[in-house]
C-alpha cells in the first residue's frame, strides 16, 4: 500500500518504536520565542543538559516585545523585560542563533522561519507555540509542543511522539474572487467544528489548495491548531521550490539540486490510505467572519448571527448563549450594523507581504472611519522593509492606520497593550477567545481584506461591498 506524505516523513525520522503507538522521532529544527522558549532554555541549563545541535535551533523575539516605533528591551507588559533578557542570555549561552530586537531578520517565528529557509520540505520542525502547524505549508512536518517537550528536543534532537492519525481535506474547484485562504480556514472550522481534526495530521489537497501561493498556504495551515489538529501539511511543489530558492538557510548550489530531487518524492501516493477524509467545494466558501468566542463560531459575512438550532451540532445551548452574551449580540441579528471600535492586521496568520498588499489595495485613497483605531503590524523585518519599498507603509499611514514594528503585538493580551472592554475589533488574527485581545474585548476574525474594508466602513463588511458604501 502507498504512503501518505506524513508517513514518508515519519518513517524517515523514526529512530525507534517506543511502543506500538509511540515513536522516537528525529527533530531537524527547533524554533523558540521569548515567551515559552526562555523557560525551556533556562530549565535545561539548570539541569546541566547541553543543547545537542545548537546550529539547528533558532530563537526570535515576537510574543512579548513591544511593536510601537522606537521600542527597546523595556516593555509595556510589566515583567516583559525579564523574558527578553532571559531568552537573550540563555540562547547566547547555548550557542543558538537569535533574531534579536534590532536584527532586520527579527519577526514572528512562523513568518521568519519560511522567509529565511529555516523550514524546508520534509523536515521535522517543532516550536513551543501552537501555530507551528503554519509551517506545514512548506511541506514539513511542523507542530506545536509544550516547554518540557522543547527541552527534550533541545537535549536529545528527538521527541517521543504518539503517532497521529491521518486526515485529508480535499478542496475541489476554485475559490471565488475575494475569497481567501483565511475564509477557507474559517469555513472549515464552521463546518466541521473546532474538534474537527481530532489530533490528526491534516493534509490539505485539491485544486483550490494547489492554486494557493505559499503565503496563502501558510495562512490555511496556520489555523489547523484551531481545528485541534496535530498539524497540517501540504505536499511541496514547484511553487514552494521556486519560493524557497536562494533563501539564507536553504541549501545552495549542488546541494539545492539534490534537495529538490528528494523533495519531489514528498507527496501522498495515489493508493495511500487516510484515517479520515473530508471533501469540500471551494465554490461554497464565502468571505467569513466569526460571531462568537470560538473560531468554529464563524459565518459568511452578511449572514445573520445563528440561533442555537442552527449550530446545535457544534455548540451546546450554554456555549451558544455564553458566546452571544460575551459578544453583545443577539441570535438572528445582522452583524453588519454593529459599529466597530478597532481594526487589526497582523499575526502569524495574516501579516505577510501579500496580506498587506491586498489590504493596501483596498485602503488606497480611503480613510478609516471616525472613531476606529486601526493598526497594522508587519510579520517581520523583511515584510516591513518590502512593504516600505513598495510604498505600502504610506498607504496604511495615509488611511489612518498605525504602522508598527514586527511582532505578535495585539493578537493576544499578555499584560501589556490591549483593546478595551466591550470594544468590538475586526482582526486578521486566529483566536476570538474571551479576553484574548484584552479583558472583555470582542474579537471578530476575518481576512485582511475584510479588516481593511470594515475599518473604512466602521462596521463589518466584505471588501466587495465597499464600493457601495456611502460615508
Amino acid at each position, binding site marked *: 500500500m502507498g504512503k501518505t506524505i506524513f508517513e514518508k516523513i515519519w518513517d524517515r525520522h523514526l529512530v525507534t518504536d517506543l511502543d506500538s503507538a509511540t515513536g522516537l522521532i528525529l527533530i531537524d529544527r527547533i524554533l523558540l520565542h521569548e515567551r515559552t522558549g526562555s523557560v525551556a532554555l533556562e530549565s535545561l541549563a539548570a539541569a546541566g543538559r547541553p543543547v545537542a545541535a545548537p546550529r539547528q535551533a533558532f530563537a526570535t523575539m515576537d510574543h512579548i516585545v513591544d511593536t510601537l516605533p522606537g521600542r527597546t528591551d523595556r516593555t509595556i507588559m510589566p515583567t516583559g523585560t525579564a523574558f527578553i533578557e532571559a531568552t537573550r542570555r540563555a540562547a547566547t549561552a547555548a550557542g543558538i542563533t537569535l533574531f534579536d530586537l534590532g536584527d532586520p531578520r527579527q519577526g514572528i517565528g512562523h513568518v521568519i522561519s519560511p522567509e529565511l529557509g529555516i523550514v524546508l520540505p520534509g523536515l521535522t520542525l517543532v516550536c513551543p507555540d501552537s501555530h507551528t502547524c503554519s509551517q506545514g505549508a512548506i511541506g514539513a512536518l511542523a507542530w506545536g509542543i*509544550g516547554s518540557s517537550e522543547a527541552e527534550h528536543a533541545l537535549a536529545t534532537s528527538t521527541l517521543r511522539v504518539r503517532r497521529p492519525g491521518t486526515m485529508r481535506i480535499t478542496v475541489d474547484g476554485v475559490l471565488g474572487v475575494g475569497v481567501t485562504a483565511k475564509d477557507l480556514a474559517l469555513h472549515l472550522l464552521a463546518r466541521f467544528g473546532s474538534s474537527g481534526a481530532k489530533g490528526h495530521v491534516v493534509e490539505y489537497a485539491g485544486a483550490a489548495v494547489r492554486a494557493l501561493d505559499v503565503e496563502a498556504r501558510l495562512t490555511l495551515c496556520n489555523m489547523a491548531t484551531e481545528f485541534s489538529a496535530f498539524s497540517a501539511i501540504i505536499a511541496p511543489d514547484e511553487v514552494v521550490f521556486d519560493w524557497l530558492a536562494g533563501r539564507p538557510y536553504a541549501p545552495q548550489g549542488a546541494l539545492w539540486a539534490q534537495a529538490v530531487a528528494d523533495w519531489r518524492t514528498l507527496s501522498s501516493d495515489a493508493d495511500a490510505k487516510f484515517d479520515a477524509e473530508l471533501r469540500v467545494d471551494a465554490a461554497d466558501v464565502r468571505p467569513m467572519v466569526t460571531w462568537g468566542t470560538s473560531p468554529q463560531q464563524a459565518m459568511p459575512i452578511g449572514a445573520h448571527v445563528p440561533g442555537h438550532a442552527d449550530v446545535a451540532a457544534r455548540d451546546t445551548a450554554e456555549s451558544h448563549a455564553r458566546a452571544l452574551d460575551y459578544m453583545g449580540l443577539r441570535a438572528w441579528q445582522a452583524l453588519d450594523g454593529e459599529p466597530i471600535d478597532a481594526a487589526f492586521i497582523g499575526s502569524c496568520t495574516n501579516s505577510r507581504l501579500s496580506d498587506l498588499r491586498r489590504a493596501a489595495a483596498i485602503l488606497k485613497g480611503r480613510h478609516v472611519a471616525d472613531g476606529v483605531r486601526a493598526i497594522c503590524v508587519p510579520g517581520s523585518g523583511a515584510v516591513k522593509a518590502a512593504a516600505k519599498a513598495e510604498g505600502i507603509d504610506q498607504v496604511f499611514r495615509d488611511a489612518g492606520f498605525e504602522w508598527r514594528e514586527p511582532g505578535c503585538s495585539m493578537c493576544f493580551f499578555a499584560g501589556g497593550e490591549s483593546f478595551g472592554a466591550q470594544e468590538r475589533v475586526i482582526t486578521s488574527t486566529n483566536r476570538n477567545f474571551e479576553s484574548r485581545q484584552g479583558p472583555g474585548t470582542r474579537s471578530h476574525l476575518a481576512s485582511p481584506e475584510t479588516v481593511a474594508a470594515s475599518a473604512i466602513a466602521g462596521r463589518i463588511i466584505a471588501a466587495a461591498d465597499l464600493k457601495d458604501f456611502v460615508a
Partner: protein
Amino acid sequence: MTPFTTLTAIALPLIRDNIDTDAIIPSREMKGTGKTGLADGLFAGWRYTEVGGRVPDPGFVLNDPAYADAQILLGGANFGCGSSREHAAWALAEYGFRVVIAPSFNPIFRGNCVRNGIVPVVLDPAVVGEVRGPLTVDLMAQSVITTGGECHMFAIDAEAKAMLIGGLDAIDLTLQHRGRIDAVRAADRLVRPWVYL
C-alpha cells in the same frame, strides 16, 4: 514528577466545551519566566470579580467551598485548546489538580498534562456530564469509579501511562537511546546533508 497510581478525590465540574488555555491561565497571569507562581492565576478571568484582582467571584465553581479540596477537574470537549502554553498544566498542577476528565483534549495540552503528572482521562460526554462527587481514578486499571460503584473504563496509550505511573523523566528515558540516535543521525546526514547546518 510525582508518580500517579490511584486517586480518590472530589471532582469539580466545569463542563464547558472548548475551554482554552487562555482561560485556564490568562497570558497576563504568566508574569515570570519560571514554571511556578501560577496557581493564583488559574482560571483568573472567571475566578475573580475584576481583571488583575483577587476578589473571588462567588458564582464561579472554583470558589465554591464544596470543591475546595477538588483534585479532579471535569471539563467539556476539546479541553485545553488554543495556545501551547505549558503554564496551563503547571497552573492546574500547582493548584492541586491531578486528573482532568473530558470528552476530548487538545493534543498539545494533553501532552503537557502527561509531562506534569496530570492524568488526561477521556470519557463519553454523557458520562462526564453525569458523574459527580468523589471519584476514584485508577490509572493501572484505567478506570473511574463513582461512590455508587459505577465503573467507567478509559483508554490511554502505553507511553503516557508508563510515564505517569513511574513519574518518569522523558529526557532520561530518551538518553538511554543515545547511541541509536547518533547512528541514525549519522546515516541521515549522508542522505539529507542539507538538513545539517
